[in-house]
């Protein structure tokens, strides 16, 4: 049994160390004796998209996000959309989340196109507005998620997207409606860094299981010793609580 993880734009979109999510998923496979291959997917055509089991993308700086947007929409667009419609499991964080939505309108009003894998759009409320920065706690299907958010854009969802989680403390998608992240098909978007997955092992395993189920029909994962992960999770809850 083997899992193929695509790491989208490991250099372009590497600002908030979201590669921790890739490291986490790869290790949690290895610890279960599941072979894993990580493919770096930089700018250029997306080849062998059907071989991908999981796709991860992180946040970048504005300039890098512009380059990524062009490549994502124009070069990778059709192949990536097909893979997503076919059920590819994807996790897009922060800037990556914005690019997986329909568009991002920046502070000056100009629009960056997204790939529309998520029915969501992002607006920057203008140069004078505050950034959404700080520790954040949300609830996803009854389980708490902890992380750190740092974004200027406000994301709004529409049908048929569902929020990934509800905000307990922090800003989330837009600081207004109490939602955080988005889910549509098997694509997940979120603003949580930290990195997200190492401190939220239940969510990490949820993504893994979904990908393994799709390819190999696996119905459950053997448990791992998550003592350290759980203590980091609890510590983050403690700190976010004041």
């Amino acid at each position: 049994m083997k899992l193929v993880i695509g790491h989208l734009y490991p250099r372009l979109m590497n600002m908030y160390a979201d590669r921790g999510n890739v490291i986490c998923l790869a290790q949690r496979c290895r610890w279960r004796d599941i072979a894993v291959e990580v493919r770096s997917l930089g700018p250029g055509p997306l080849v062998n998209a059907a071989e991908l089991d999981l796709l991860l993308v992180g946040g970048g700086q504005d300039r890098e996000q512009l380059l990524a947007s062009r490549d994502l929409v124009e070069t990778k667009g059709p192949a990536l959309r097909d893979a997503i419609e076919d059920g590819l499991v994807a996790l897009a964080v922060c800037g990556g989340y914005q690019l997986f939505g329909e568009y991002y309108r920046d502070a000056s009003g100009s629009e960056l196109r997204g790939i529309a894998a998520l029915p969501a759009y992002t607006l920057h409320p203008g140069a004078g507005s505050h950034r959404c920065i700080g520790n954040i706690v949300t609830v996803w299907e009854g389980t708490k998620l902890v992380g750190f958010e740092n974004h200027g854009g406000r994301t709004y969802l529409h049908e048929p997207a569902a929020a990934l989680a509800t905000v307990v403390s922090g800003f989330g998608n837009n600081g207004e409606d109490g939602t955080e992240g988005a889910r549509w098909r098997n694509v997940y978007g979120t603003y949580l860094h930290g990195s997200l997955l190492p401190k939220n092992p239940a969510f990490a395993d949820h993504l893994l299981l979904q990908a393994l189920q799709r390819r190999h029909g696996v119905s459950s994962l053997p448990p791992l010793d998550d003592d350290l992960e759980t203590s980091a999770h609890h510590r983050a809850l403690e700190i976010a609580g004041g």
Partner: protein
Amino acid sequence: MKEDALSRLRRILAVQLARGAGLFSRRLRQGGGTALPGLVAEHVAPGLLGFLLRQIPGGTIFVTGTNGKTTTAALLRNVLAADGRSVLHNATGSNLTRGVLSALLAHAAWDGRLRLAPASIGVMELDEAAIVPALRQHQPSCIVVTNLFRDQLDRYGEVQTIAAGLRAAFAELGPATALLLNGDDPLVASLGEGYGGPVRYFGVDAPGLARADVELAADSHYCPQDATPLTYTGAYYGHLGAYACPACGWRRPEREVRATNVVMRGLEGAGLTVALPEADLSLRLRVPGLYNVYNALAAVTAAWHVGAAADAISQGLGATIPAFGRAERIETGGRQVWLLLIKNPIGANQVLRLLAAEEAPLHTLVILQDRAADGHDVSWIWDVDFESLASASITTGGRRAEDMAVRLKYAGAESITVMRDIAGAFDHALAGTPAGGTLFILATYTGMLAMRRVWTERGFVRDYWETQA
């Protein structure tokens, strides 16, 4: 500009209040009074910084950049002192406006007039954000920019935004201010383009130490002109190296000051030859790592720019030991202990590279904090190549000890103990280090200060505000 009576009164009041605050802060042992007096003065008399700096007869050198400010300023201070100058310097790494003010106020009379020797010169370290308002009050003789890496993003914003802020501030300066720039850093080098005054570049020529491509944690490896990814014929660390844009041909500028014959001597330091237009200097450094070779080059460039003698340069550099907590060594209980500051992925990877040259198995204590001076977001540890510590015996400490432990677990480490309390973590890590062995402590900024506080209480070291003359 003539000062009105009210401004004069505010200035005098600011000086008096600042003095009181300094005494108060020292008495409470809340730090050496290194920032509080300045903080008070800044609020009472907003123009005070310019008023004080204008009085320094030899002018002032500003040192800024993401990494290496404190060490560069310390190296430069020692060179200029060896050159017979009397140096005013914010030595404790308090690099906001208030830190500079505090350093200057220590020399001020009751009315804010500085009592200075005729050969006085200022060396002031300012962080990338604080230098912008400081430049509105004073035009220094030169500005050294060490590098621009991503650092503590929740505080400073993106590195491109920082560069844009510096570029705008530099555009307001007159031709009397020279820019001394790291030519190997594309973003820093681009600050010299179109600048109205003199620009001097420094950089390293050490093909043996270069890697083929930039490391993954690097940023800004894009052409500042057209955002095309730069190609490197050699990358030293981060995005520093020999770069060119394949699209527009923009490339690394000619560098007047270059390091050649670089020989790394692990944690003990490095040797190098600095090629200046008129002479080659053979130098020995007691600060370790390639990152400190860059810091030394920055200091040499500034010293050369202000006319320091060659002898003074080699003497001053050779006399400089790492700034507090940057690579500080103590001995206790028959063991050697190194304290190494880590504050962002690029710097941390450099420190790990130093440790890779040490004898395995390593005994380490890694302290992770998330206070304002560390950056509230601890995500950055996932960009650090901690995989090189996989076989080490590790204790993690600090407010985010658990996060650090998880990072190290995923890096492949198997021997990890979590102890949030820093004194306790130190004792545990030291007890786990065999007699005659070495313990390496990697700590974020406030973790490093906390570790030193423990050492001070135990009499291993002096308070940091007393370590530098």
